[in-house]
């Protein structure tokens, strides 16, 4: 009896989670709506003058993206742990790290990718020139990937804590600061017409680092969480 191959296992997890997301899409789009609303609050609170908004636009977009990525984390592992699916995965004979990474990829597809696509539109509303769009989308694509992996480690650690979402935010947000700094900085540089290769490379390096080591941390944390 040969267990399913790794690729097949990843495909199964992705297919299952995307199908589940489709069944309750109203919950899935909440982070995106949150992102749009938060970024809309700034012109209302500060000033509708585009020159003023332009200066803070990269920071606003990035902070909003970080918070909305955090919003979807709470429900990343919790349902599977509560209904016993995670125990079945631990015992499935498949590497838990790979299964959890597949779930993290779904988190990015549902909570990261929509932000990447929506950001240029929101950016324009904050006075960002069109020429910055590619850099904005690139930093967010790389950055939200890192946020998803870091967030997933935190979610695996806090999944057995009742009402662990505040703890999750306290745990994950400080770790995400480098991503925020390089991401917002790259967009800022692009708006001033300067070279952005440096921060972009660093973001890509961070993503590679997190994707390669993160799954092991997730599975170690999850095994501890499942014990209780």
């Amino acid at each position, binding site marked *: *009896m*040969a267990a399913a191959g790794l690729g097949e296992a990843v495909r199964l997890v992705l297919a299952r989670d995307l199908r*589940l997301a489709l*069944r309750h899409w109203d919950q899935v789009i909440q982070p995106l709506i949150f992102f749009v609303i938060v970024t809309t609050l700034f012109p209302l609170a500060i000033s509708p003058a585009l020159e003023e908004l332009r200066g803070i636009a990269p920071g606003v977009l990035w902070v909003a993206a970080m918070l909305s990525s955090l919003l979807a984390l709470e429900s990343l592992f919790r349902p599977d742990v509560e*209904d*016993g699916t995670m125990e079945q995965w631990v*015992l499935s004979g498949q590497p838990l790290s790979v299964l959890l990474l597949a779930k993290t990829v779904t988190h990015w597809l549902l909570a990261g990718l929509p932000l990447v696509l929506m950001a240029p539109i929101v950016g324009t509303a904050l006075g960002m020139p069109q020429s910055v769009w590619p850099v904005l989308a690139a930093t967010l694509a790389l950055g939200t990937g890192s946020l998803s992996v870091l967030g997933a480690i935190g979610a695996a650690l806090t999944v057995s804590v009742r009402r662990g979402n505040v703890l999750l935010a306290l745990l994950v947000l400080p770790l995400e600061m480098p991503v925020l700094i390089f991401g917002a900085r790259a967009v800022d540089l692009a708006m001033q017409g300067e070279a952005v290769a440096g921060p972009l490379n660093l973001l890509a390096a961070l993503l590679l680092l997190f994707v390669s080591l993160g799954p092991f941390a997730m599975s170690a944390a999850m095994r501890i969480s499942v*014990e209780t």
Partner: protein
Amino acid sequence: MSTPFAAPTAQPHLQARAVHLWRGENHLLRGVSFTVGGGELLQVVGPNGVGKTSLLRCVAGLLPIESGEIEWGGQPLPACRDVFNEQLAYLAHVNALKADLTALENLSYAVALHRPVARVELLDTLERLQIAQCADLPVRALSAGQKRRVAIARVLLMQATLWILDEPITNLDVAGIALFEECMAEHLRNGGVILTAAHQRLLQGRPQVRTLELH
């Protein structure tokens, strides 16, 4: 089609020696020992809170034990974890079903992680457990007993040698219990091993059935 019990270990054999487990300040398992071989069912009994579920979770590998040894086919568990996981079907208190997926989808995602499985086979198993009419209903629409039957269908479909079943007949009606006992008897005839915790005696009076009293 793979054979159900192509076990690398010649004879399925589960043994625990002097297993100790602490849960916080509570010394839950105090030197539990047992052996159970192919074609045998070991039923763990005892009052609530005595550690039946914990023992089952220890054996399954979800809970690390404090001291003692658990062996599968003569090898200590940590050394043969992969082989053990492939031959294990674990049924917990909770059914591990997604309420938003249909019974069929739930089974196909869960079983396919272990082995390739055809839709016909899933339908046949649901038919055998007399819940074929629920195949395309979302699990949230099923009754508690029907959900349990879907979870039992997953155990059957895994084609595992060792079944670890935690209160398997919870919520089952009389017909359901009889049906499930027939499934267990067949598993034992095929040389399978069952470790279970249940308040009601299962397969009572059969020679292959033994009990382990925890206190």
